[in-house]
């Protein structure tokens, strides 16, 4: 698999570290909304198809990338810096397996 890092260019999978489901939103630091924290920490989407993922270019510029990847074909639809683009927002109350 090759990820086209917006900073470094197309690079092999071995240079990247998967950093999880990109559909999650972290509650505000002082939030006491436990279901929201629980969803953020433990719920992961597992779609058969396009998936929002976060990858770090750990063997390169170390940027975190918002990657849309098809889990069936491994085709990568888009790659953007997370810090510019923000990860996909969801309400934090998402049920396990529900679409974002």
């Amino acid at each position: 698999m090759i990820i086209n890092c917006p900073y470094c260019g197309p690079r092999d999978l071995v240079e990247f570290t998967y950093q999880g489901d990109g559909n999650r939103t972290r509650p505000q630091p002082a939030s006491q909304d436990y279901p929201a924290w629980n969803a953020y920490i433990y719920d992961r989407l597992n779609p058969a198809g396009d998936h929002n993922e976060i990858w770090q270019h750990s063997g390169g510029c170390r940027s975190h990338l918002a990657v849309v990847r098809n889990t069936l074909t491994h085709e990568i639809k888009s790659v953007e810096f997370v810090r510019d683009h923000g990860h996909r927002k969801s309400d934090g109350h998402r049920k396990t397996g529900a679409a974002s």
Partner: protein
Amino acid sequence: MSSSRATAGGLIDRSKTVRFIFDGKPYAGLEGDTLASALLANGVSLMGRSFKYHRPRGVVTAGIDEPNALVTVLKGEVREANIPAPLLEIYDGLTAVSQNRFPSLGFDVGAVNQLGGKVISAGFYYKTFMGPVVGPLKGTRFWMFCEKFIRRAAGLGRVDYAPDPARYERMNAFADVLIVGSGPAGLAAAKAAADRGARVILADLDARFGGTAKWSDETIDGMSGADWADMMVRELSGRDTIRLLNRTTIWGYYDDNTIAALERVTDHKAVAGKGERRHRHWVIRPKKVVIATGAFERPLVFPGNDRPGVMLAAAAERYANEYGVLPGSNVALFTNNDGAYRSALALKKAGAEIAAIVDVRATISEAARALAAEAGGELLLGHAVTSTSGGKQVSGVSVQPFDLASRSVSGSSRSITADCVLMSGGWSPAIHLASQAGAKAIWNDELQAFLPPESRGRWVGAGAFTGTFSTTAAIAEGEAAGLAATGGEDTRSEPRLVVDGALDPRPAPVFEIKASGKAFVDYQLDVTADDVRLAHREGFVSVEHLKRYTTLGMGTDQGRTSNVPGLAIMAEAQGAPIPEVGTTRFRPPFAPVSLGSLAAERYADLKPERLTPMHDWHVEKGAIMYSAGLWYRPMIYGQPGETVEQAYVREAKAVREAVGMVDVSTLGKIMVQGPDAAEFLDRVYTNMFSTLAVNKARYGLMLRDDGVMMDDGTTWRLSETDFLMTTTTANAGKVMQHLEYFLDVVWPDMKVHLTSVTDEWAGTAVGGPKSRDVLAACVTGTAVDNATLPFMGIVKGEIAGVPVMICRLSFSGELAYEVYCGAGHGQHVWDAIRAAGKPFGIVPYGLEALGTLRIEKGHVTGAEIDGRTTARDLQLDGMLSKKKPFIGSAMMDREGLTDDNRIKLVGVISLDNRPLNGGAHIVEQLEPKEPNTSIGHITAVCYSPALGKYIGLALVKGGKKRHGQRAFTADPLRDRFGPVEIVSHHMFDPEGNRMHG
């Protein structure tokens, strides 16, 4: 002795003799021989015993599809099993042994299994050995009794435990086009692509390029196939845009055209060249791939089709034409297609007599008939072979009239004498790579074969791989593929003049001749046609189930010769067409891959390592070095005659009584800088850092978002906006990634910059009651007294002319300092501190003493911060700020993490004055024979010189509530049981007077 060296012909060098040993017996072959061809040349046809029935087996193929002739190569202590003899190039001194026989290949006691053949059918083990015990000879207990005998009798090669002294390497390569296979189609594609200036890699698993052109009787452009191939290779080899990889198996086709290949660099050499690695693991990233992998000939399934001397027709042709070896002198052929006729003529030309050609078809093409006439021998159309005769070597066949419509034999049987039987059941394109690339194979009824599907632009196919069996057409298709892969127009040259090629490639749809006797589908795993039907009768309808139940196609040959015949027999049993039964998907690797090549330079002495600036000094002083991740750290500096325990006790005692020094350069160090750095640290640590004064340090705890402990360390405030964070050695990388994630993903607005500076600073910790005196004797530019350098204070100064930064902090519990300097000066500063410490009795100490000092003090490390424990579990409740949120603050209060009954940090003291074991359980009652309920476990142990006892740290349910109680250590694996006292983890100087002093 029926096979022999032909008097002439072949690509071997008849002037160069090569001597080798097979099963302890010396033989001579010729340069260019494989083990299979050399043994055949020596009249050896018996090369192995079969998996289950121990039937004698000979070589069936001339390539990587070989299911029978698998041998073990011995190199010194190292055995490498299951090497196909047709792929093993011989060299002087090669030593190989046959497999799966006892005591010898000729006389094998396991062959008695043949008598009970009906008993050991598909599912035998499941039916006999699994399940409840019913009667004396059934069930799981019976299996446990029989297992050791069966394990010895079954299976193929044996592995050994000798370390592999060979070295391997990995290479990356990029190309415009990778061409897999160097037959006529592959060579034509390479030439076409190369002529357009493309960067081309041409790979072939054989030693010599050319594929079928090397051994077919066809002429191309008036040249022999072999000469034409050599000419093409010569034209390609002069160019710097072309890389030719022979002995290279392309074994994996992954996403984005990432290709894995194995190059066998030295396996064919008696002595490897200087610096040569045995295998090279290639990762090739071509823009396009041309797959020209050809096709595998299929055996026909008939009783006795596994007797030595029965082989594939094209394999025999290859032995005759490439190796100058006649597999027999009097040859019978059995076929369902035209291809075997060409093989018959090739053997005739090489010097064999053709006894008969038996064809299941009643009518054949004129071209085939002409070849048969030229080859001589009887032509039996509409006939089939129903059995073979002979013992360890075939001596003849029985034939009977065969009706194509009903696919059955009838009428009178007759015998034909032959010392070699060649069979051809049609061809299966080698579609493995296309299948790995994600494509589903498509059944072609005309060719009776699975063909590759449409490619989705990543690869182009050419030649027999696509079902194009004529050489003329294959060359044209190769050229077109080479052009297509480089984005060129299809302007292929004039058709090549190929003589001899135009045979009908379509076989009759016959895979099996039903007659009495064992007819093998999968030779390697001894699966017969009856086994396949039995699986069907027992309800295994899916092809995936069939495969697992019968083990069809699951051997190291991956069913190259057996998959399609097996499917065809299954389809017939189901009364369904073959495509409805379906085929299994091929997955990497295409052929066995050495694990060494995958490890490559990450193994043994080639593994990368991280060394501190003082590493050489430690080694020179006799330190035993320990690996900690990639780092190496001194464990003890042993003196002559000292045990490890004596050494660390001496070192730890010196720290408590005088002064010691230890290399702490491996600690993770991260610069956290920027206007928001203090706020950022407040969020990532459980305690406050924004309140920390400049030139002061503070111990901090980090949690994960789920509230579990992640790491600890001290962070030094060097200015308002600059912090130097230290982490544990093991977690440096993980902490960096954790911080980066939060800055980049969660709080992108924070103005903080992180830099890993682990390798920039060398660190020396100086600890003990006399440590201040030592620093006073060597530090200039600053005072180090208690007022200038209080506990957790930081000063800057110089040691021996080198700038240093000193922080007064203590892991040992003594008055102690960490001295940091530029890594390049590490040894210089270390030497200066040591010289200054000499009058005070300074000793260097290693990790064991460091561990002892911290266990006495109850300080935690990775053994306690194990990814499951919380700050409260480790008695660090006071570190959890209530004034601010931090990472993990929300989740750490979950009931599961605050339960009183969680295991918590305590100290343990051995009451029987014997050493404790890390990992041992703590139990309330001690009954060694009975299982006891564990109430926790020991995490770290040592002999404490300060207490004069064997002590440890432990995580025990109830924690403080058990202080003063007696319990027991239970360690059944190491047979260590005994009483312990549970105490506070602060076992030495609980008030901390020594470090504040």
